[in-house]
């Protein structure tokens, strides 16, 4: 039974040549038009709302598109002027790019390290405590970005926030004057806590799934050979799970690069405090607050290009892993 199933599946999984045995054409469900009919609605929606806007955002970035164009629907092509303005803007190099890139690097490192540590812990727990911790992790994962951000803002509210009071008590700041959201560094430290809290569950559960595939005997052999936990991780676990780590790192990088909601909803993050803008919020603020849709689109294109490069890395890893 299984062999039959395997064979027929294997026949389907490979890249079949277009010419099929005529016998199969007579069976129901093997016509050439049916798969396209089934795919059509989904493809139309994705083409109309994902692919076409991708093209449009590039076209917009080549226009001077402001409030007047939005109302009249006219187009004013200005070539690469938006990009020139963008790349010669000191804000990009001194504020927005450092905020985006440094934050992404630190957040990815923190997310992957915390996630891996939690996965290693989960792997050593008994059934009951593992179930408990897994559920807690899922709860953290499910906390919506909007409400999660408000809780962190609440904690760090200037004056009477619980975290501000606690930091005041140990003498790190003065609760009466300090505003953690005003300063660029402390703003992003709070965002980091929020993003790591939201992002590490995915890493932990993915790495845990990988850890469970490593045979126990290997670990035991390493213990007998006298390898400590640190040595075992770097000589056994990490090389075996290298593809898993690569995927969670790249995915976290994509998410942390384009982080928007968590920044926008923090005090000052909606453009009021220009020193905390990142690529995502800058693009949004230029478009919807300043009505410079062309410039906003150019920033969005820049963000997309960066993400595309990272995505290419992800795809190459994925295709080495698994055939479609």
């Amino acid at each position, binding site marked *: 039974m299984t062999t039959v199933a395997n064979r027929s599946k294997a026949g389907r999984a490979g*890249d079949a040549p277009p010419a099929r045995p005529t016998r199969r054409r007579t069976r129901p469900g093997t016509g050439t038009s049916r798969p396209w009919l089934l795919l059509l609605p*989904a493809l139309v929606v994705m083409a109309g709302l*994902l692919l076409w806007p991708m093209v449009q955002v590039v076209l917009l970035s080549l226009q001077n598109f402001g409030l007047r164009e939005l109302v009249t629907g006219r187009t004013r092509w200005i070539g690469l002027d938006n990009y020139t303005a963008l790349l010669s803007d000191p804000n990009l190099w001194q504020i927005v790019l450092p905020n985006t890139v440094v934050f992404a690097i630190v957040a990815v490192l923190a997310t992957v390290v915390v996630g891996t540590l939690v996965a290693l812990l989960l792997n050593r727990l008994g059934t009951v405590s593992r179930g408990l911790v897994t559920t807690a992790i899922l709860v953290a994962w499910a906390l919506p970005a909007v409400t999660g951000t408000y809780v962190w803002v609440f904690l760090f509210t200037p004056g009477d926030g619980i975290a501000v009071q606690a930091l005041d008590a140990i003498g790190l700041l003065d609760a009466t004057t300090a505003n953690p959201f005003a300063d660029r560094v402390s703003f992003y430290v709070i965002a980091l806590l929020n993003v790591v809290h939201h992002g590490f569950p995915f890493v932990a559960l993915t790495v845990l799934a990988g850890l469970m595939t490593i045979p126990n005997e290997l670990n035991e052999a390493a213990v007998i050979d006298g390898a400590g936990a640190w040595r075992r991780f770097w000589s056994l676990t990490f090389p075996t799970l290298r593809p898993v780590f690569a995927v969670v790192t790249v995915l976290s990088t994509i998410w942390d690069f384009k982080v928007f909601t968590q920044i926008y909803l923090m005090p000052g993050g909606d453009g009021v405090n220009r020193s905390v803008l990142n690529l995502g919020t800058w693009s949004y603020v230029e478009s919807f607050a300043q009505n410079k849709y062309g410039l906003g689109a150019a920033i969005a294109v820049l963000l997309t290009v960066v993400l595309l490069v990272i995505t290419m890395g992800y795809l190459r890893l994925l295709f080495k892993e698994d055939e479609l």
Partner: protein
Amino acid sequence: MRAGSFGKGVGVAAVLLFTLFPVWLMISTALNGRANAGSRTFLPEEWTLANFAFVFGEGGFGRYLLNSLIVAMGTVLAGALLALLAAVAVARFRFRFRTSVLVMILIIQMVPIEALVIPLFIQAKSLQLLNTLIGLVVVYLAFSLPFAIWTMRGFVAAVPVELEEAAYLDGASWGRMFRSVLLPLVAPGLVATSVFSFITAWNEFIFALTFMSQETNYTAAVGLRGFFGQHATDWGAVMAASTIITVPVMIFFVIAQRRLTSGLVAGAVKG
């Protein structure tokens, strides 16, 4: 050995504290009658449901919740249908460009939706879809489709082909086989994927913020901002409304995650 189990205990405590603490603080503040009077404690100083009553009464949050629910359900129903059909196509048929279609869906999944907010806003404006719930449904449908198709593909592939062939032998047409054999077998997968589409639509913020300028059309995630005053924030109300938004999602998520993982694993088995 004793040191090892002590370390584990500390680790478990630390993880539980870090993961659950924000949720705990949210709920306890929501139940704290003195939250607006500057009470900042880990346990309510004065237990009350007054914050919830305020949110639904004066806050008008019921309206926003209803909007969110309509948008999310619309996304789920349309998304489940479209994703299932597409998943059957890529999991059950061999056709030219099948691999290209799959790769394209995967790439589309990586598109930063944040970058699409400007063109989609302009498009929605010219189609008169701003300030309508249907506009949001269509947008969320597009966002949830790539993931839903990829996931459903695993569930469909996990159904043995022999079952379909048996139906054909019994004289069933393709449509009959789809309804009576395939659909019941992939139903659990459909539920799990739908939960994720629901959460995507329920939690989404940027598009809801950009598309809706009239207060009556706000979704819950955007309506929350109304409790932030110019000078003082009504934290009791913010946290009560946040709790209402969050708790259903969490219950859904914990259930769906378990199912989805088993479904993905089932779908991943290849010979």
